[in-house]
């Protein structure tokens, strides 16, 4: 064991630090929980494992908190490394896996508890939100283990689960994700937690979650809009319009706000600014400042190779004088899109703000089904600036700036929070809503 073995490259250290910080900011870790691991090939060509040290603060990692392990021998790093190193090592041995991350993902843990006698096999977690459903491929396994921390049982169970799934949960402990990179693992964990959060909120507003799951099982296409684009790796530093320094700053600023304010999970959602024949496009809108995300310049003209998300941006620009478009997966909005007023049978077709600012800025926020026609959606965006697509995220448009279009999903989140809080208190939402808003 030589000293040089301890020294990962500065770039790798930065990536660990940034992912650790993002885990903390997204509130899916406590100060010392979780671990981050990846395969890494050193200068000597030998493949190794990098993993965070046990007890390290993931939100504020020192270089010395990142341990370098041989994949084939035990060394000093092993004894400083995470107590769950063996689990990660076996996950990293799976085909195509370059990274694994564990986080406590509290919201997912909340909704996967059960009070059945132990031992038992808990039911898998079925996401009811579009991101969770698509990215987690319909379900997340949940397992109970007698010793839910660094145990042999976990070392056997988790890699086995992850051989077939992207994320798995140990009941009462947290989630593990496999991925190609640590950023992609972060993406999956954030989406898993987001999926748990949506279910948690639905339970709070009295929604029939199991009924919803049954319907999703019957006809998933009827419940979700198109899936998000495939996650791309190793492209977060790309910027295809370096001359537009003011706009780059605005993209980074808006992206950081979307992430930090939990308007959309890490590297989800999209943002764009229209030019004359091209548009500037952030396909991973929710971007922590340190990690960033690609900033593309793409032709405005539709291209058969465009993914559905990009095609939507282009179609919206073709339909109006919009300058900016945003699409975010706001968990509170997805939740309220399923809200049925007491005594009514159908989910509401609108969210009506009950707070002062929301009710003036956004008197009515339409809620439309996932299969809404583009023409209908753009028509509503002209009149209301922001629209909630049930099972499809929140779309917003602006006539001037990225900041303007960021404000829409951000406000929607707050508007929904006020409504949910009022409902939790047992207040009559109908009495709080301006009567006229129900007829617009």
């Amino acid at each position, binding site marked *: 064991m030589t000293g040089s073995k301890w020294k990962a490259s500065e770039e790798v250290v930065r990536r660990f630090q940034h992912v650790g910080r993002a885990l903390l900011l997204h509130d899916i870790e406590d100060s010392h929980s979780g671990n981050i691991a990846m395969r890494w090939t050193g200068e000597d060509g030998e493949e190794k494992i990098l993993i965070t040290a046990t007890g390290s603060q993931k939100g504020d990692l020192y270089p010395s908190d990142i341990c370098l392990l041989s994949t084939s021998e035990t060394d000093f790093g092993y004894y400083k490394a995470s107590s769950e190193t063996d689990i990660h090592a076996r996950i990293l041995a799976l085909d195509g896996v370059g990274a694994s991350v564990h986080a406590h993902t509290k919201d997912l843990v909340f909704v996967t508890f059960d009070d059945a006698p132990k031992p038992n096999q808990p039911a898998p977690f079925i996401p009811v939100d579009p991101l969770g459903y698509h990215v987690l491929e319909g379900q997340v396994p949940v397992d109970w283990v007698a010793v839910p921390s660094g145990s042999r049982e976990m070392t056997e169970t988790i890699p086995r689960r992850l051989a077939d799934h992207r994320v798995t949960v140990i009941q009462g402990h947290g989630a593990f994700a496999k991925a190609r990179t640590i950023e992609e693992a972060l993406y999956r964990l954030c989406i898993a937690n987001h999926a748990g959060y949506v279910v948690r909120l639905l339970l709070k507003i009295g929604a029939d979650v199991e009924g919803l799951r049954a319907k999703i099982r019957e006809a998933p296409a009827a419940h979700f809009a198109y899936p998000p684009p495939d996650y791309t790796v190793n492209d977060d530093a790309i910027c295809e319009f370096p001359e*537009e320094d003011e*706009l780059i700053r605005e993209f980074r600023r808006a992206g950081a706000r979307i992430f930090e304010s939990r308007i959309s999970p890490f590297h989800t959602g999209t943002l764009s600014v229209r*030019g004359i024949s*091209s548009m500037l496009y952030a396909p991973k809108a929710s971007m922590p400042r340190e990690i960033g995300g690609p900033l593309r310049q793409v032709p405005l003209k539709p291209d058969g190779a465009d993914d559905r998300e990009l095609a939507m941006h282009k179609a919206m620009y073709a339909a109006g*004088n919009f300058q900016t478009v945003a699409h975010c997966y706001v968990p509170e909005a997805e939740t309220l899109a399923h809200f049925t007023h007491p005594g009514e049978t159908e989910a509401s077709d609108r969210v009506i703000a009950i707070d002062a600012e929301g009710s003036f800025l956004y008197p009515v926020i339409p809620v439309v089904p996932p299969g809404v026609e583009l023409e209908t959606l753009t028509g509503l965006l002209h*009149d209301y600036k922001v629209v909630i697509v049930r099972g499809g995220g929140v779309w917003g448009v602006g006539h001037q*700036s990225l*900041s303007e279009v960021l404000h829409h999903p951000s406000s929607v989140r707050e508007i929904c929070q006020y409504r949910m809080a009022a409902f939790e208190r047992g207040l009559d939402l109908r009495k709080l809503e301006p009567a*006229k808003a129900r*007829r617009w």
Partner: protein
Amino acid sequence: MSSYRIPGYSGKILEVDLGREIVRARPLDPALAEDYLGGRGLATRLFVDAVDPACDPLGEGNVMVLATSPLVGMNAPTSCRGHVVFKSPLTGVIGSSNCGGTWANVFKAAGYDAIVIRGKARTPVMIDITPDRVELLPADSLWGLDVHETTDRLLEDGAGKRARVLCIGPAGEHLVRFAALMNDKNRAYGRSGPGAVWGSKNLKAIRVFGQEKTRVVDPERYQSGLDQARFLLRAVPTTKRLLNDMGTAGLVRLINVIDMLPHRNFQDNLHRQDRLDGASGEALRSRLLVRSGACMRCPLGCQRHTRVGDRTGEGPEYETLVLLGMNCDVYDLEAVTLANYQCNELGIDTMSCGGTLACAMELFERRYITEQDTEGLDLSFGNASVLEELVRRIAFRTGIGDQLAEGAARLAARYHHPEVAMTVKGLEIPAYDPRASYTQALGYMTSPTGACHLRGGYAVSLAFFGGAREIPRFSLLQSPIAIRNLQNIGILQDSLGVCRFTGYAYSAEPWSRMVSGATGLDFSTHRLEQTADRIAALERVFNLEAGVTRDDDTLPARFSDESIVVGGKERCVPKDVIERLRSDYYELQGWDSEGRPDRALLHKRKIERLRS
């Protein structure tokens, strides 16, 4: 109350042929109301239908249309404004000017949506409008009176104080190319020289009296927009406080902060802070302000009623203060205020006046004109003592005033130095240096009336005060769309009869609900956008027919060749940037490389007219 089929409109157009002494009312075509709203849109359409674009702006062939909107007469914030459209004697392109005060509101209450004025009276006349009759009356006794005297004289009889007067002063009578129309004595349809058009027609004034109410057909929808508008106006600092506390002059120090405040005919943007402080909105408030005031139904209250010694009047506004002041290197607040009073009384646009004086001062500084040309007046930059005298000479076209009355472009050309004229299409540039914002630069370039921040898009409102809507100032990609959208919202405000300053707080959404509630028609924001596109295209068509070419959509060379420091960086608008911005803007509008909309686009915009 009008029984016209579309609520919100009076349903009548008043046609006045001064040469043939014919006055008649005709019904408003409902299709025009639906497609052009009112104000600027309706006036533009009526004007384009009535005029030969090749006409002499000061000949009897020119036509002037003044229109109100469906919101005028209601309680929507700032909904009191009228709009005039004409061929400008200053620029030779479309003239389009907007004004608050009370006149337009009372005109609508007399039962009309617009007035179309043609021909030329043989002798000075005025038009007297009441709900019962419209008369052409001799105005020989008014000719020569200033704006205040004319207004007072006309209110002495007739309907007395309940009537309202729109008139010209001596500047209009003497065909000063930037003469204004004035109502409520001090409120101006200022830009592009509408006063000269009246002067050329021997039309001195229109007195109007009316009391007809305008009804709202869908009160709930209307009220929802109104509630939202009122809330936002109270929430945004600019509309909540700044404009009322300091008037528009409160912008002086703020615009200087963003390095956009022009100096010495746009030769630089460098101001000594102590001099600037002495001529700022704060100084105006502490030294000269008697009280603030407001146009009808305006909660903002940006009017400044001021006193200098024993003289009282209104102003100065920001543009006046900077263009007659700092841009002439004058920081004497009292001198600028007195010159402003004089402009109001004589009926002169203070902006073009200031731009022309700054041009003259640079010509003088460079010795292109001398004291021989000025009858001994010292036109040096910073000489505040000549301002009032120059304004008077302009109004009466005496001495050097006769040359100044032609505007900066003609003045500079006369002395063979056109590069000294800071104009676009012949219109003097407002008090925001375009080198500090590509977006504003493009707005000046593409404004249908020439360099105008109001018709060309008020980019500054977003560059500094935009809040969530704040736009980058130097984005080549974003500037064309940002300015087109700003131009469009300006078209809508002008066509709805509301003030540009509401744009600090909100865009089209509240107006959409208010105008839909007022008319019962579904004016969605998308439909309003399409309406704005249509009006913009029609203005462009007129300008093309009047002879505008791509080369006119540009900036003076100074802004490309001479840099200023903005945010610590040397900034100008290089020629290749001008080229790209212009080309992109044309493409965005659907125009060809020469800036011409094709027939298919015009058909889409429902404009079946384009002479080749």
